[in-house]
């Protein structure tokens, strides 16, 4: 119970300068994280250099909660590559494998058909109405590396937003009451 008294005491005795310093420090931490994220985007050439696997359609290779590192180069898409793509009208990107590739002679445009390893049928059902192929502009990147389990934090925070608020609240409290 002495701890609660201490906490209340420390909140009461906050000086303005100290508070501003702490807010600025917090701001620095957040902006550094943002800088690192944007730099990653530049280096890997894709809008989302790191994605979390949300469904089980690529099991047993990628399970829900795994993290994938993406990279996008100008090199042509080939069969077998694991690509991350956006379908018009859906906002969640999908990570599946390219099983058919038809590349045009002169323009280099490409038609790609994808399928999840764990699915029985290909992805035509997932594409937009009347769309039978993916084109280059749908594809956001290729998966080149992976880390297991680390993405569960993101999944929990997305599906149970209350946990996100609790975490941020606790962090805020910690920052305000820390004596450093």
């Amino acid at each position, binding site marked *: 119970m002495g701890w609660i008294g201490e906490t209340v005491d420390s909140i009461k005795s906050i000086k303005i300068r100290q508070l501003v310093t702490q807010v600025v420090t917090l701001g620095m931490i957040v902006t550094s994280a943002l800088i690192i994220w944007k730099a990653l985007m530049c280096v890997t050439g894709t809008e989302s250099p790191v994605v979390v696997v949300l469904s089980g359609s690529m099991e047993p290779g990628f399970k829900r909660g795994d993290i994938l590192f993406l990279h996008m180069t100008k090199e042509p898409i*080939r*069969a*077998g590559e694991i690509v991350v793509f956006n379908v018009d009208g859906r906002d969640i990107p999908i990570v599946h494998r390219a099983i058919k590739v*038809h590349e045009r*002679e002169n323009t280099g445009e490409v038609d790609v058909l994808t399928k999840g390893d764990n699915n029985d049928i*290909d992805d035509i059902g997932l594409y937009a109405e009347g769309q039978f192929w993916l084109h280059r502009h749908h594809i956001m990147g290729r998966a080149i590396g*992976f880390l297991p389990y680390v993405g569960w934090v993101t999944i929990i925070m997305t599906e149970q937003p209350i946990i996100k608020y609790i975490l941020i609240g606790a962090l805020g409290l910690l920052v305000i009451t820390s004596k450093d």
Partner: protein
Amino acid sequence: MHSFGYRANALLTFAVTALAFICAIASFSDKFSNQNPSAEIQILNINRFKKQSHGNDEVSLTLDIAADLQSLFTWNTKQIFVFVAAEYETPKNSLNQVSLWDAIIPVKENAKFRIQISNKYRFIDQGHNLRGKEFNLTLHWHVMPKTGKMFADKIVMSGYSLPDAYR
């Protein structure tokens, strides 16, 4: 290090950082493994070869696939995804890759195999260019690691061709 919480926090941060290093080293160690995979594919039969109602050619064939991918498995390998694709050229397309069959190999023991199957996925052209077409059959593998960088490669086998007339 003056309080319990501080020490616990320091330990957790260091332990997780060290864990990230360990995973990176494990992934890096894959570079040093000796890999010599081999494969052989034969076309046993062309089951059907026709032109669909909306103009595209379609082939159905039975393949005999023999491969030994055991040397690709390392301590950091979770599974290997293997697939066979037909690759060919047409006037309109500089490259066509159509996956005919794929499988997931979870353990080293299953990596040496021989199967005879008909194509899992439909072999359909964008057009009607397949009569008498020469094509390559490629066996691709994608190694999915327990942690770290994925790598892939393939073996190209050429010299296959489709009959000159529909059946």
